[in-house]
């Protein structure tokens, strides 16, 4: 059961990361682009199992 929840968690993390990248690409304001990139970092680190 724990393994299934863990896999779902990583899928969710990847999904949010993809949404953040998509928003970063769509956005026109540089302040928002910086914000999306910074918010993206912990998601990437978790997907890579670094943090």
């Amino acid at each position, binding site marked *: 059961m724990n393994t299934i929840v863990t896999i779902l968690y990583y899928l969710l993390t990847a999904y949010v990361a993809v949404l953040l990248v998509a928003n970063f690409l769509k956005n026109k304001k540089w302040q928002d682009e910086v914000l999306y*990139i910074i918010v993206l970092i912990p998601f990437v680190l978790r997907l890579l199992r*670094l*943090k």
Partner: protein
Amino acid sequence: MTRKAVIAAFGAALAIFAGLSFYRSRHLREPVVPGPSVSRVAHLGDYFGPIKGTVNDVNVYVLEGKEPGGTILLLGGTHPEEPAGRLAAWIFAENAKIAKGRIFVILTANRSASTVTRLGGAYPPDFTIPTAWGGQKFRMGDRWSNPLDQWPDPEVYLHYPTRQELAYVDIRNLNRAFPGRPNGTLTEKTCYAITELVRREKVDIAIDFHEAELQYPVISTIVAHQKGADLAAAASMFISSVEGFAIGVENSPKALRGLSHREIGDATDAISLLLEAPEPFLDATRGRTDRKLLLTGKDDFVVRAGKRGLLFEKIDEKGWPIDIRVGRHTSTVLQILEIWSGDNPAKAVVLSGVPRYTDIVRDGVGAYLKDPKTIDPAKLFYE
């Protein structure tokens, strides 16, 4: 498009910097120079197969004397964020000369917990003990297993086998999961492996090294299972009269489950004891949470809390330096062994070479850490 590329590159640089920092901290290799009595280095997985190859398949240093006698287990790193425990165990593994009996030493009982720091706690990732040869760096660690190794936490943690309800996060706390469960979580399996070690090696006394915040009532004490109450009381009296510091005795509560002093004593023939030293770094009222506080134990805010009567241990501007905390642990073990050996000659554990409280306070912990450069790299072990 150029702007987006620049911002993405900035983000990638930040991610690489942070990722490298976390990776290096998680994989910091701590060298151990096996002492003169280390006859072999086993692994926890030797006592319980499913642990083999996991992050918690940790080294078990086996120190043996020429004469048979009793068997002792020293547990360091049950809570890696309490570094005096790991350092005291380290000093035994690198220095003890055993004349009689055996000592099993685990330096990092919960290695997984040593690879992470408290989330949101702003802990330093590591700390360095100064030595004559330059210093030895250690991982800082946390109280709980790394969520990368064991996740998710349940809404409610029911301790096995008693089904007592404990704090949800303590399902990753090694000192809330004894005696362990063979088909449980990584933390429960680790506890089960340690309990199996105690059973198979016929350990007479298991001693678990800890530190506590000064706002916690169980501090500067030996917590003793009822089988070890007399031994702990005698050790407390001798320590308070000859070692240069005072230490109390607390009975292990029968209704509080999962702790080593309760469960190892209940599940095996061993006497289980737990030692607590004061660590201001853990106090909620502390100021800046840095390496200096960890090693000096000096904190104005904790001192102020003491002046308002909020603490269970004294503190002044001198703090609680790491040398004092480690020295308390080594002297307490030496006194326990001396009393045990006097009362049980057939199961005596006789040793030399381990510094006492006064030695460590005078020379510093670093004086008793061995220089890994002085021995053949093939003979080194790593935590």
